[in-house]
């Protein structure tokens, strides 16, 4: 199977690798995994509580090229968006952008789940109603 140029570009030059302070009340952390392939992905976002704008996003993914590219792209996309805009990102958007083949669609699902889990964690820290990642996970295309 050949990776698309965009996947290779993100894999070779991943954006926003690293971590944010988990204890910061403005930082939401999402840790998700795809057990079929043993991938694990951590996505963190720092959100301004007044404007609800995502000011910072970091990720660390242990997995295949597509999983790394999906999470790298996700951090690029969420930066500068509001929480609500970021929650509207669908895995199919990632599939389209990275031209992921069908066997790698689960990597994009993982990235979408990670965004939802991280923002769910942030909302919880802010005292908003908890958003359960399992219930918000999208259909699998």
């Amino acid at each position, binding site marked *: 199977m050949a990776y698309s140029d965009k996947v290779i570009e993100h894999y070779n030059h991943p954006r926003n690798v690293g971590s944010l302070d988990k204890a910061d009340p403005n930082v939401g952390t999402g840790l998700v995994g795809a*057990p*079929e392939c043993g991938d694990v992905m951590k996505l963190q976002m720092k959100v301004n509580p007044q404007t609800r704008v995502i000011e910072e996003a970091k990720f660390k993914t242990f997995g295949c090229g597509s999983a790394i590219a999906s999470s790298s792209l996700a951090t690029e996309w969420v930066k500068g968006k509001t929480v609500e805009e970021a929650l509207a990102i669908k895995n199919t958007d990632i599939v389209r952008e990275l031209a992921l083949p069908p*066997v790698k669609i689960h990597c994009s*699902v993982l990235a979408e789940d990670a965004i939802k889990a991280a923002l769910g964690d942030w909302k919880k820290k802010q005292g908003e109603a908890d958003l359960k990642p399992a219930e918000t996970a999208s259909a699998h295309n």
Partner: protein
Amino acid sequence: MSVIRSQDAQTEGIPVTSCWNCRAAVTGAHFCAACGKVQPLPAGASYFAFFGLPQKLTIEPASLEGQFHMLSWKLHPDNFVRASEFERNLSLERSSQLNDAYRTLREPVARVEYLLEHLGVRKEGTTKQQAPPELLEEVFELNESLDELREARAAGGDVAALQGRLEAAQQNFQEDLDDVDAELAGLGREWDAAVDFGGDESTKKALLARMNEVLNRRAYIRNLVAGVQKELGG
């Protein structure tokens, strides 16, 4: 039109067809019992049925190997050099299926994976697998420490100390892997008992789901073991 299906445990679910040569009834057998001609592969037949085995997880390696050699010999394309092209193709098809079936069933883990796939419990990319958060935390941390070791080593850190930490990590992961394999084997025995004593569907379903969970955990640990091995070998 209703399709008659065999009720026999070994050939359960395989449609009863008639021999292409003499029209006698055949149920997934390699050769027609009446005229001895090699038969096409039936749709939906499992690797278990290929060896005439029930869908159970305890398989005696020696008897499987014996069956494999006997069938390899019987189905070998060399036996069909003077047969029709149709029969030569059947022998090729069956021989190649025989190799796949043997390679899969002889490995205990591959056997479980295959059973779950065959029964539609595990299908990559379509069923969403959930991992418990504690497992994800643990796996993430282990991956991170492996990463740290890798970086320190690349930067020329204290190789002897790193080596020691890597070896300790390898031992831990290997023990985890052994535990998981033991758990999988135990579930396999429960599954076999359920098959033998006609366990109800909900019991079987629960067992399949648990085996699937254990396989998921195993995938993480296997990746970690492979990661450490790569570091130690390099």
